[in-house]
């Protein structure tokens, strides 16, 4: 047993770091490090740089254009790029729908969609949740009715999805739709790929508590979807959906991102003062920071253990739920500590460009500009991707057998 990186892995880390420094737009890196909002272009610029290098499909098999990296290499890649301030690669195409298409899609679907996911030509979003179907996903109602006319077999889709992350940027949405009301709820669900430009698709913004536009409602009004956009078999969508969810959960742990926030926090805690001394000298704050760092190290090793054990299997098991719970909690603790470090400087809500526009000095430390908004925003991490209560239910049933 050895928990350190070997020479080869260190060399790989160095290679990733040098590439990132040479190819990541510094203004985007600054935004990421500050916790600012990113535009579609900010995400895609980095995506394209990686694509040119052949580094987009980190977890993909080489047959589909992936890097063929093992789990440790993938982890090193995440860690180093996050540390340098690279935007997170959007998971919806790369880590969610792509594995489903690889495992359950037909050859034509694989040939059409996968290259466009790799290149960044298609931005995907996830159409699972509905207003009445959040935790109880299988109760979803968005209806797809199969029909055939002169233009061929197709589905007519009606209903509403919600909480669709960055749906405002998306070209495609993968949806769970109801194709049957017979039998168990789970047995009437299908997995459908829908072009966001189809007539009848409407995207409406939902403003989140940090006053940013991150999620959306997506409405379907008699949307015609070619039958060839169905993944696998009709009414088997639930199997594919669950396969995808377990992929989402390992990705959601966010270890690389957490390490970056920790580093930033060290810096911030040395700048801020408490009782006339640097905040890092305040044992209460320092202990909190130490505690979360220890937990993060434990999470990192656990993540690598889970990934390692899963090499042989097709999808991660229920252990992924433990990673999601702990990872989301650590992310929340870190954003909370950053806000705490700000003290009263956490109070102002200053929109981008506002104080420049007024031509007055902003006296509160700009380093904290996004601290409170990020804390607010990160309350989502224990809710999305299956809430932490639902994750605990999964472990209760599938691991403990209760």
């Amino acid at each position: 047993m050895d928990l350190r990186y070997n020479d080869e892995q260190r060399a790989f880390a160095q290679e990733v770091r040098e590439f990132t420094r040479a190819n990541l737009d510094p203004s985007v890196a600054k935004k990421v490090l500050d916790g600012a909002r990113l535009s579609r272009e900010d995400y895609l610029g980095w995506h394209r740089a990686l694509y040119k290098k052949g580094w987009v499909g980190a977890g993909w098999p080489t047959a589909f254009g992936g890097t063929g990296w093992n789990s440790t290499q993938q982890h090193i890649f995440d860690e180093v790029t996050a540390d340098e301030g690279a935007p997170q690669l959007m998971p919806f195409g790369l880590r969610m729908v792509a594995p489903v298409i690889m495992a359950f899609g037909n050859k034509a679907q694989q040939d059409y969609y996968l290259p466009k996911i790799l290149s960044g030509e298609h931005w995907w979003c996830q159409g699972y949740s509905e207003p009445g179907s959040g935790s109880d996903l299988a109760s979803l109602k968005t209806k797809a009715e199969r029909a055939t006319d002169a233009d061929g077999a197709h589905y007519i889709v009606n209903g509403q999805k919600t909480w669709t992350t960055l749906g405002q940027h998306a070209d495609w949405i993968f949806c769970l739709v109801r194709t049957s009301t017979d039998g168990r709820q789970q047995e009437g669900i299908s997995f459908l790929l829908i072009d966001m430009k189809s007539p009848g698709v409407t995207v409406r913004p939902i403003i989140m508590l940090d006053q940013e536009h991150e999620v959306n409602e997506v409405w379907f009004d008699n949307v015609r979807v070619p039958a060839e956009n169905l993944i696998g078999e009709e009414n088997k969508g639930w199997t594919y959906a669950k396969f995808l969810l377990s992929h989402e959960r390992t990705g959601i742990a966010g270890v690389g991102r957490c390490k970056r926030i920790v580093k930033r926090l060290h810096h911030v805690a040395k700048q801020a003062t408490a009782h006339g001394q640097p905040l890092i000298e305040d044992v209460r704050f320092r202990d909190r920071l130490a505690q979360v760092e220890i937990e993060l190290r434990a999470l990192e090793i656990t993540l690598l253990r889970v990934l390692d054990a899963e090499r042989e299997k097709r999808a991660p098991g229920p252990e992924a739920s433990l990673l999601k719970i702990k990872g989301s909690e650590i992310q929340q603790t870190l954003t909370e500590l950053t806000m705490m470090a700000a003290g009263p400087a956490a109070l102002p809500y200053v929109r981008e460009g506002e104080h420049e526009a007024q031509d007055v000095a902003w006296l509160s430390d700009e380093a904290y500009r996004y601290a409170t908004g990020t804390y607010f925003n990160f309350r989502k991490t224990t809710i999305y991707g299956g809430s932490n209560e639902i994750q605990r239910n999964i472990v209760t049933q599938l691991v403990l057998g209760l």
Partner: protein
Amino acid sequence: MNFSLTDEQAALKDTLAKFIERDYSFDQRWKIIGSQMGWSREHWSKLADIGAMALPVAESDGGLGGNGVDTMVVMEQLGRGLVVEPYLGCVILPVALLTQGASDIERAGLLERIASGESMVAFAHTDAGSRYEREQLKTRATFANGAYSITGNKIAVLGGDCAELLLVSAKVDQDAAASLFLVQTHATGVARFPYPMQDAQRGADISFVNAPAVLLGERASAQAAIDYALDAACAALSAEAIGAMSELHKITVEYLKTRKQFGRAIGMNQALQHRAVDMLMHLEMSRSMAMEAAVAMSEPNAQLRAKSISAAKVLVGQACRFVGQQAVQLHGGIGVTHELNVAHYFKRLTMIGASFGDCDWHLARYGESLLAA
């Protein structure tokens, strides 16, 4: 021991509760926070008509002579309604400061104008980059040609967006202790950057460069008044938090009963039931400590007062965090949207926790009282 309100206090509570119900629905508040100014003069006048502004002002200064418990009654209702008008910033704080730190002559007239709702006066205290520091002020005053002038940077000044007068804490030259000054907001050398706070209240960063200032009280002897005023603010915030938390708890329990998943109310799940019970425990412990803080504002011994205030701020701060976070969590996705009141309560509770000393700061202050004993 007596836990009940006087008849006057009960009547006051009633009047304010009606004001919140009639004039401060979520929709009405939504309009107010979306307006240019971000708060409403009309609602400010209504609060003045109810007597809320005159309440903390001593009778000898033209007010109603209310005590900490009266303030608690008001703040709890303002918390329920998430009222954004700067009652804490432009009434509680300046009244406490002027009463404790200015001479009869200096405060004559001014307190009366605050009591009537005519004058807006704010307290510019927090130095940029000093977090919750109360004593080691960076802002400096100098005396030349028979007058004082002030130089420094103050942040997150509650009501600083609209106040016409500022009470400013500063140290004169090499003085060991702080002094208190009155500065006209429109004086030369004063620049402000007004902004909304994270919770939709309004404030400002204010910089002073050789701004003309009038000394209040004795030079280098304002610390006691500053501490008193900041303690009064903490007591008021504790009461406000109770109002906000009890509403938020009620809303959350109601949601547990009505939101259905897996064919039944989500409140049928024991994990969520117990969470709601823990929220209630935080709320009730906090309610007790808000009372402790309210009564402590009449305590003549400043050390004893400080201990009670910090004790309250620690427990209330922890409760604000737990109740706020869990209310959001138990609402699921809808809990993190701007359109629902839950997030607005959560944000206000978070900011209460971060105002005038967070839990760690007050725990340290309480701990120091153990060393002194």
